[in-house]
């Protein structure tokens, strides 16, 4: 299928080319109730699918989306990285509904490609400062008490390309290193209790079984509270690209800690200061110092519709929609501005609103072709208010790479096209 993510009145060319932006004068219908001159053939003509038999059962033994949705896929920004095996792609946030990210659309981030692990050959070892070092098979884990929870996983580098100003034109690229999934697995506390923590056990090191052997340090306090070792997502086994057969789920904390293809947990007394917590995933400030072990993801939000990949097509009543989330708790409120932050209205939160989960918000608005500067501002259950980008830069500088949770601005033009802009 060819790409058609602007199959309406705006062409792809119109959305992205500079010429299109400058010269477009697309007439948009004034409102949805315009009188048609002729009967609508979608109604007056018999369609093929109303006459002929469709595929029988088993033709689609594992169901896939309609061919008309083939444009809804993860996308890569190839220039960001040296090779696709050590790269990331992005969740198409503008094409989602509700709060659950379908498993096949969850962004990918691999450091040495996708490990294809036979679950019969997968082992989890717990060693270090424990009474009894243990080995578990996947069958072992499936005999233990389990729990399910919906929570978001956001890459620490999500929005990292935007520190110096508006760069990528689409919420998929600016905010798409996040997914929200129902994970099912064993509470890590049960496994640590089984091995028995020594009194000086303060930190864990989680290690992946892929070729990157990703390792990250995790305080025992968090490990004993709400961490899961998950074997399932959205009701089925983890996808290979999400760590099949076993990954860590660390609600509210940066995605890099959610080690995939998890094979070993070592218990220690201090953090490891591993490569991924010194050379990477540390936040360089303007004074040349770097923050380390910045685990919690701050409250953040983005308007997904309208956005550059989802332009406005109609004047009159429209529905603004977006996501908000916080690593510190639940989303309490989301405010939306249509005039670049001068005035704000409180948006409607769509149920369910869950702790450390993406939350969907909506705002109905009437649009008559005027220019809009669309922003959203999340407020979480601790009272944290998502900051303006300039406020955030004043504290964190522009070299942080990670943890950019500033307020996003979209410019909506008179023809409905949307562009990622920086406001001053």
């Amino acid at each position, binding site marked *: 299928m060819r790409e058609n*993510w602007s199959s309406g009145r705006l062409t*792809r060319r119109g959305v992205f080319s*500079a010429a299109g932006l400058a010269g477009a004068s697309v007439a948009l219908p004034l409102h949805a109730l315009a009188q048609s001159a002729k009967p609508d053939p979608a109604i007056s003509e018999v369609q093929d699918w109303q006459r002929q038999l469709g595929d029988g059962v088993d033709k689609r033994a594992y169901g896939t989306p309609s061919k008309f949705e083939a*444009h809804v*896929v*993860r*996308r*890569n920004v190839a220039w960001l*990285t040296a090779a696709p095996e050590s790269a990331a792609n992005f969740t198409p946030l503008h094409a989602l509904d509700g709060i659950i990210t379908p498993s096949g659309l969850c962004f990918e981030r691999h450091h*040495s490609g996708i490990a294809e692990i036979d679950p019969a050959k997968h082992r989890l*070892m*717990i060693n270090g400062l424990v009474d009894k*070092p*243990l*080995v578990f098979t996947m069958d*072992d884990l499936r*005999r*233990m008490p389990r729990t399910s929870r919906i929570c978001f996983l956001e890459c620490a580098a999500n929005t990292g390309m935007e520190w110096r*100003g508006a760069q*990528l034109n*689409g919420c998929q*690229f600016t905010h798409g290193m996040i997914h929200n999934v129902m994970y099912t697995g064993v509470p890590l506390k*049960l496994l640590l209790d*089984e*091995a028995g923590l020594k009194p000086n056990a303060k930190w864990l*090191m989680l*290690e992946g079984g892929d070729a990157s*052997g990703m*390792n990250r340090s995790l305080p025992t306090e968090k490990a004993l509270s709400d961490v899961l070792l998950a074997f399932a997502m959205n009701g089925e086994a983890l996808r290979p690209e999400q760590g099949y057969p076993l990954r860590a789920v660390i609600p509210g904390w940066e995605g890099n800690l959610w080690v995939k293809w998890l094979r*070993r947990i*070592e218990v220690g007394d201090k953090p490891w*200061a*591993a*490569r991924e917590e*010194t*050379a990477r995933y540390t936040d*360089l400030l303007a*004074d*040349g*110092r*770097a*923050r380390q*072990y*910045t685990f919690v993801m*701050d409250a953040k939000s983005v308007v997904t519709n309208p956005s*550059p990949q989802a332009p406005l097509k109609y004047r009159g009543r429209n529905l603004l929609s977006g996501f908000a989330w916080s690593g510190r708790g639940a989303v309490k409120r989301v405010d939306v501005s249509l005039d*670049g932050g*001068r005035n*704000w209205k409180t948006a409607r939160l769509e149920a369910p609103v869950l702790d450390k989960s993406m939350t969907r918000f909506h705002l109905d608005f009437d649009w008559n072709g005027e220019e809009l*500067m669309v922003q959203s*501002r999340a407020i979480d259950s601790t009272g944290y*208010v998502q900051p303006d980008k300039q*406020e955030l830069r004043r*504290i964190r500088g522009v070299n942080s790479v990670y943890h950019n949770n500033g307020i996003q601005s979209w*410019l909506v033009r008179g023809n409905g096209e949307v*562009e*990622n802009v*920086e*406001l*001053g």
Partner: protein
Amino acid sequence: MSNSASRITALVVGLLAVAAADAAEKPSKMGIGRPALPEEIAAWDTDVQADGRGLPPGRGTVKQGEEIYIARCASCHGEFGQGAGRWPALAGGQGSLKADRPSKTIGSFWSAVAPLYDYTRRTMPWGNARTLSADETYAVVAFLLNLNDIVPDGFELNDRNLASVKMPNATGFSADDREVSEKKFWNKNPCMKNCRDVPKITGRAGDTNVTPDAKSGPKVD
């Protein structure tokens, strides 16, 4: 009830309370999983901690490391550690952390040598990981330190001296202090009306022209 009987009762009640507290503190075991054998732990527990705990016995010189590096690392990281294409630079950049475009390398940014040994041994060479011996890893790390002017040409790195090599940015990291330094983001009354002047557009993603267009998307059948 006599005094002694009541004392005994109190003692028994007390003991029961202790036993109950013990049961509450000690989690009941599921009896799932089996003990890890020492050979299995040795096979997998190859990580090195920040202070050097876990380093295997071994040694390697800058000169030995240069040969291995040129053969197995330079195609991605460049002959002088300058990086090739978008692969990371490993050397240079010292003093650049406050610059407009900082260069975060081993010499300019890493806080300790142990994580470098750990990462090189378990993750590199990329695409053929876990193929450097302990001695080869000491040699490559010695060469990388030499490229960054941290150790002299004739240096030998080993399990006894690695943790004592001081890195230029060893004190450049601090703990997460957001709840203090960014306290103002916890704001009880965020502004709702006339919060700022009319905004001006100061930058546009359209001007950067770096967004993948639809044609660059993956093919879907």
